[in-house]
C-alpha cells in the first residue's frame, strides 16, 4: 500500500465510523462528517455540472459558433444556445431579493419542460404499456401438449389473480365516489393486493440492503483493519524484533 492509498484508506475508514456512530446517537463525530459530506458533495456537483453540463451545452457550442463567425462570417444555429444562457442567467437574479422574480423565466421553462416530458413518458411507458401487459392475459389458459389440449391451471390461476389485482387496486384509486357497497369492497380487495405487493417488495429488498452493510464491513475488516492497521503494526514489531 503506497502512502497516498494508506492515507486515503485511513480517512475513508474514519469517516465510515463517524457516519455509523449516528446509529447510537447524534455526536460531534457525526456532525463533523455530515457537514463535511454536505460541503464536499455540493462542491463535487458544482465541478461535475461545470464539466458535464455547462461546457458541452453552452460554452463549447458558443465557442464553435464564434469561430465560424470569425472565419466564415456567417451565423450558425448554435447561436441559439444564447437563449439557454439567458434562461440560465435569469436564475442568478435570485441573488437580489428585489429582482428574484426574474428567475421565474428559468423556473417556468424547467417546469413546463418537465410537465411536457413526463406527460409523454408516463402515458407511454406506464399507462399504455402496463394496460397492454394486462389485456393480453386470459383467465383460462389451454395449452396444446402431447395427448391433446389440457387446462394449464398454474398459468390460469396466476393470470386470474393478476387481472383481479390490477382491476381492484385501480378501483381503490377512484376518487369521485364514496367507497361503499361493491365499489367499497373492490377497493378493499385492491388495498389487500397493494399491501401484499408492498410487503413482498420490502422483503425482497432486504437482501440488497444487507449486502451494502456487508460491503462496508468487508471494507473495514479487509480493506482497513488487516492491511492498514494490523499489517503495519506487525511489520513494526517484526522490525523491532530484528533490531
Amino acid at each position, binding site marked *: 500500500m503506497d502512502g497516498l492509498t494508506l492515507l486515503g484508506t485511513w480517512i475513508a475508514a474514519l469517516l465510515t465510523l463517524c457516519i455509523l456512530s449516528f*446509529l*447510537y446517537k447524534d455526536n460531534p463525530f457525526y456532525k463533523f462528517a455530515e457537514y463535511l459530506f454536505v460541503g464536499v458533495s455540493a462542491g463535487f456537483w458544482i465541478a461535475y455540472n461545470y464539466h458535464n453540463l455547462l461546457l458541452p451545452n453552452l460554452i463549447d457550442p458558443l465557442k464553435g459558433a464564434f469561430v465560424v463567425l470569425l472565419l466564415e462570417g456567417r451565423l450558425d444555429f448554435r447561436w441559439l444556445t444564447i437563449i439557454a444562457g439567458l434562461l440560465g442567467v435569469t436564475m442568478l437574479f435570485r441573488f437580489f431579493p428585489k429582482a428574484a422574480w426574474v428567475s421565474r423565466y428559468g423556473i417556468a421553462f424547467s417546469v413546463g419542460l418537465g410537465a411536457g416530458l413526463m406527460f409523454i413518458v408516463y402515458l407511454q411507458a406506464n399507462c399504455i404499456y402496463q394496460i397492454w401487459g394486462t389485456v393480453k392475459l386470459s383467465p383460462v389458459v389451454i395449452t396444446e401438449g402431447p395427448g391433446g389440449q389440457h387446462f394449464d391451471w398454474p398459468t390460469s390461476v396466476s393470470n386470474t389473480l393478476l387481472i383481479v389485482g390490477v382491476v381492484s387496486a385501480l378501483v381503490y384509486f377512484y376518487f369521485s365516489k364514496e367507497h361503499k357497497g361493491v365499489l367499497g369492497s373492490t377497493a378493499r380487495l385492491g*388495498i389487500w393486493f*397493494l*399491501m401484499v405487493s408492498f410487503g413482498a417488495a420490502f422483503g425482497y429488498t*432486504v*437482501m440488497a440492503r*444487507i*449486502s451494502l*452493510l*456487508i*460491503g462496508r*464491513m*468487508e471494507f473495514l*475488516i479487509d480493506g482497513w483493519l488487516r492491511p492498514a492497521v494490523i499489517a503495519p503494526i506487525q511489520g513494526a514489531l517484526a522490525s523491532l524484533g530484528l533490531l
Partner: protein
Amino acid sequence: MKFVRWLADIDRRIIFLVIAVAVVIPLLLPLGMRVKVTPQTESIYEEVENLPPGSNVLVAFDYDPAAAPEVHPMALAFLRHCFTKKHKVIIMALWPQGAQMAVSALAEVGKEYDLEYGRDYVNLGYKPGGDIVIKSLGASLGEVFPKDMAGEPTAGLAILAKVRNLKDIDLVMDLSAGDPGIPAWVRVANALYQRKVAGGCTAVSAPQFFPYLQTGQLVGLLGGLKGAAEYESVLAYAGKASRRMDAQSIAHLVIIVFIIFANISYFILRRQREEKREGPRTGPAASP
C-alpha cells in the same frame, strides 16, 4: 410483563447492534453453513471432477468490477477446483475489464498452488468482438491471441503447443455479467464446435439461461452469490461467497425473529388490554 413491555417498545439501538453482530460474525468467523447445492451447480463440479488430470479448461472472464461481488467468488472457487485437479487453465476475456479481474483472481488463487505460467495456466487477455472471437478460436488460439495479457508472444508457451484451437478444449467456463457472455459461448463453442460449456452469472440474469440447461447446451450454471456459495460448499471451503451468504442468512433470520417477538409482545399486551377493557390501540397504523 415488564419484559413484554420492554420488548414491545425495544430501543432500536439494540436492534442495530444485533444486526451489526449478525453481519460481522460470519465475516470474521465463517460459519460454513450448509447451502443446499442445486443440481446445476453440482453438475459443473462433477464435470471438472471427472475430467482426467491435465485436461484443458478455458475460463472466460466476461464481467467487470460492478458485477464482481457476485461473480468474482465464482472465479476464485472454480480456479481453485481446476488447479486442485491439475487441469491446464486458459484464461481470456471478451470484456475489457475482464482480463484485469482475471489478474486479480490469479494473484489470489495462484499463490496457493505450485504453478508455472505458460505451463499450467495462461492469461491471454482481452479481445473485442464477441461471437467472432469465439468463432476464430475454432481455427487457432495463437492467431487470435498472438500476445498474452502481459504483451509477451504466446508462440513459445508450452500450454498453447498442446492446445491449438477450441477443439482441444475439454470444458469452457464462462463467467459473465451480460453481453457478450453465456449466449455467445453457447451459440458458438457449443453449437458450432460441440464443446461443453458451463456458466456463471449474476442472480438477476440467471433465470434467462435455464432453458439452456434443459436442452443441455449448458452443462451447469452458477447463479449469483448463492451459486458461488454453493460451489464453495461442494469444494468444502468457506470463501467470500459463503461468508456473505452466511451473513445474509443470519441477518434475514434475525429480522424475522424480531418480527416474531414484536408480534408475540403485541398479542400479549393486546389480550391484557382487552381484559382491562381498555379502548382499542390508537396511533400509527401500518395502513395508508
